[in-house]
């Protein structure tokens, strides 16, 4: 009995060692990919990866090499191209820390469904990266730009997307799950934020760029790309982008400029809540949007008596109108130009009246284009800031 145990233990120990730690990868054997660019080529895809050079970023001594390295490969599928990169990259590509996927505009116009398959199928990828569309240049060029301040360009994009969504409200962060959801859903179409390179595209990878106090070349995010299913069909302008975020209740904080006498007042929206209701009225679907927005006075550039109730009410009215205009403009713009329900009104109907939705589902794009809607905005101004009267009023008198 005892002998049997000993033999069994021996086999167990040997078995452990024989596996040889097959999935073991030491930290200095992997290449951490932070951004992935996908472009269309004639017979497949051009894949570009942005790999970080850890020694340069966190090491104590800088050797003057770049912090990130871009590699590209051209192959029939995304997966094949990534494997083909091993001929160029000395280490195994590690995709779990991907922050950013950039898709070239031509590819987006043709359809992104095929490339998304790899992103959602591969086990190594987490789904917490953001997807963006490169505007005006191939994705590989976006990845070829050295950014100032943030050493890793992908990180710069990642935090810029998050911050501008929170504070500027004209962009939107899109993760893989949400994107695939809206591609598949009949009552909702996807949008993706765009990125473009400003300055000389070619010189973006030059190290001297980031040695400048005011870098000539950089990356900027703006505008939302409108998709129909998985194909890009156009871009929303900035106001419409903001209107889109109001409708989808994606406003955390933003700035609204309202006119007053001979100047402007900036109001900082601090809280906003949108509810969208769908109803069938007289056999026609109708959307009712209610927005509750609260703001603080952020900047005053005109003569106005803020201690006066009347003038504050006036400001509130302007504030409401401004939001209402943007929302209406966004909807009309999309209805006329793109016929793509990026606001998810279809899903609202689906939820409120599933039976009726069945009737409209097949023909929803057409229905959406002729959809009637009402917008009601309830705007309130809560605080005036640390001063009430602007000192400009006194200097002018």
């Amino acid at each position, binding site marked *: 009995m005892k002998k049997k145990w000993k033999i069994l233990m021996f086999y167990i120990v040997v078995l452990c060692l024989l596996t040889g*730690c097959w999935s073991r990868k030491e*930290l*200095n054997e*992997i290449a*951490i990919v932070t951004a992935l660019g996908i472009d269309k080529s004639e017979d497949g895809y051009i894949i570009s990866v942005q790999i970080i050079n850890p*020694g340069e970023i966190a090491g104590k001594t800088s050797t003057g090499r770049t912090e990130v390295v871009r590699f590209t490969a051209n192959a029939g599928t995304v997966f094949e191209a990534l494997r083909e990169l091993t001929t160029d990259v000395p280490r195994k590509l590690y995709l779990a820390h991907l922050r950013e996927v950039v898709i070239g505009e031509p590819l987006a116009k043709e359809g992104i469904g095929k490339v998304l398959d790899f992103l959602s199928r591969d086990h190594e990828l987490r789904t917490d990266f953001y997807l963006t569309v490169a505007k005006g240049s191939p994705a590989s060029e976006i990845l070829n730009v050295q950014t100032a301040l943030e050493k890793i360009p992908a990180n710069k994009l990642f935090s810029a997307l998050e911050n501008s969504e929170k504070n500027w409200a004209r962009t939107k962060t899109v993760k893989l799950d949400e994107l695939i959801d809206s591609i598949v859903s009949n009552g909702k179409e996807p949008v993706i934020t765009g990125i473009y390179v400003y300055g000389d595209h070619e010189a973006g990878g030059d190290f001297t760029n980031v040695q400048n106090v005011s870098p000539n070349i950089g990356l900027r995010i703006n505008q939302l790309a409108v998709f129909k299913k998985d194909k890009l069909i156009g871009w929303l302008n900035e106001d419409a982008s903001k209107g889109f975020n109001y409708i989808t209740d994606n406003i955390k904080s933003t700035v609204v400029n309202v006119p007053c006498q001979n100047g402007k007042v900036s109001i900082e929206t601090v809280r906003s809540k949108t509810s969208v209701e769908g109803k069938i009225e007289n056999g026609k679907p109708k959307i009712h949007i209610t927005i509750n927005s609260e703001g603080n006075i952020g900047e005053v550039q005109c003569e106005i008596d803020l201690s006066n109730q009347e003038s504050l009410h006036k400001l509130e009215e302007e504030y409401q109108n401004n939001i209402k205009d943007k929302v209406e403009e966004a909807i009309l713009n999309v209805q006329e130009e793109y016929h793509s329900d990026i606001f998810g009104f279809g899903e609202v109907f689906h939820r409120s009246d599933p039976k009726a939705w069945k009737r409209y589902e097949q023909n929803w794009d057409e229905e959406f284009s002729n959809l009637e809607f009402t917008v009601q905005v309830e705007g309130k101004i809560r605080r005036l800031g640390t001063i009430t009267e602007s000192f400009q009023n006194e200097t002018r008198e």
Partner: protein
Amino acid sequence: MKSRKPIPLLKLRKRKHSQPGQSKKDQNLNINQNEDTDQEQAVPIHLHRELKKNIEYIKQMVGNSSDIVIREFDLGQTGEIKIAIFYTDGLADKSFVNDFILESLMVNIRTANLGSDVLSKKNIYEIIKSHSLPAGEINELVDFNKVFYHILSGDTVVLMDGFLKGLSIGSRGWADRGVQEPSSQTVVRGPKDGFSETLRTNTALIRRRIKDPNLRIETKQIGKKTQTDVSIIYLKDVADEKLVQEVKARLKKINIDAILESGYIEELIQDETYSPFPTVYNTERPDSVAGGILEGRIAIVVDGTPFVLLVPALFVHFFQSSEDYYQRADIATLIRFLRYFAFFLALITPSAYIAVTTFHQEMIPTPLLISLSSQREGVPFPALVEALMMEVTFEILREAGVRMPRAIGSSISIVGALVIGQAAVEAGIISASMVIIVSLTAISSFVSPTFNMGISVRILRFIFMFLAATFGLFGIILGLIMMVLHLNSLRSFGIPYLAPNAPFILKDQKDNFLRLPHWSLHSRPALINQQETVKENTASPKPPQPDEANQ
């Protein structure tokens, strides 16, 4: 393996506990030791009636050992009464022997007023025993085993010509370290006295803390050559009778030539030898022992060592310090949580680091991963080898630090800082993060209030590192599951090792991970103690009520 299993408590009740030699010593009222000697080893050799032959035998047995003192002298008018005293120089208190034994026997007995009795060869034994020895501890001896035991323990033995029995007088007194502050379990608040190498001092320290007639100190000799005194101490009305019998039975089974330290006893009576976890508690602190005895546990004091054993010892006991009960309850509870946390840190920090950096890089936040991976640039070894190197180096340093003469201690700390430190990182042998991991592990392993538990962590840490290097986090979890299963299978003197957590005893949770205020700790631990379970009944302190104050 089979023979080491604990004897079921029920079987013990049927076994009769034979106590030979009890009847012979009935008259000896002054004995404070219950000499429950079950010496089965030697056939007793009885004393001879002639003193000369006795002396010859003793001389023959001890050879010409220079420290055995034999003093012969005569008594009576004509010197017809021959007496000899025997003691060991260095073990017996010389001034006591001279002032109270030799002086009374050689000088005072001649002038003593014996009433009607006349000093003669016939009654000398009775006269000496009842009149002439101003000593507290006197034993009657009939065989040589006893004679040698008493002489070699520091007692003085008196033999008289013409008697088949002799007397031993307690005269033990040797150079002692005295009661000093314990070196292994220091406290900030609490008593600073510690056990020493002398059994009597140690039992006195315990007796001083529990002045209860129910406190039993039962002594026997273990070790054929060393004849080491081993006392078991317990509270008769609190300790479980079955447990006391179990401890006695296990001690009785010991058949060994020497007991030099309580570690011998610990290893000979513990439930499970092949386990990294200790099932016997040892301490240098009398207050810890007193606390254990009051919980119904049994202390085993061994002569010649300041380390006293406490059984049964459960997993939670190794995370409790006596200071927990002297400090405020809130901080004591927090510190207990800290100890468990440190235990897990010491156990799995290196293995978790290996697993995460070689298998699960996706779990590390990106900035941290970049920083870790930049430190690993240029390190030639895999993470496991790196960790093993550092851990082994640390173990070497620690061992060197313990064994080394004090005078060269500072040189080790200087060299040690080089080996585990910045120099090793700069040499490109290991990464900086590994230094932090190893240091964290080292500090955490010292948090344990008992040295024992720290040792089990040291052993297991290496197993976990190998598991992590082969299977990643999966291996660590497997290891933890196996560890918990093993802990569940352990028993300490029949008590489940993980009690009161498994089996879960709600009542005992008041003093487990938590340490509630003393006024709420009403009962003693349920499994250990089954007799007098009520510990205290103090009402919780309250401010004086206003109407009471008015009256």
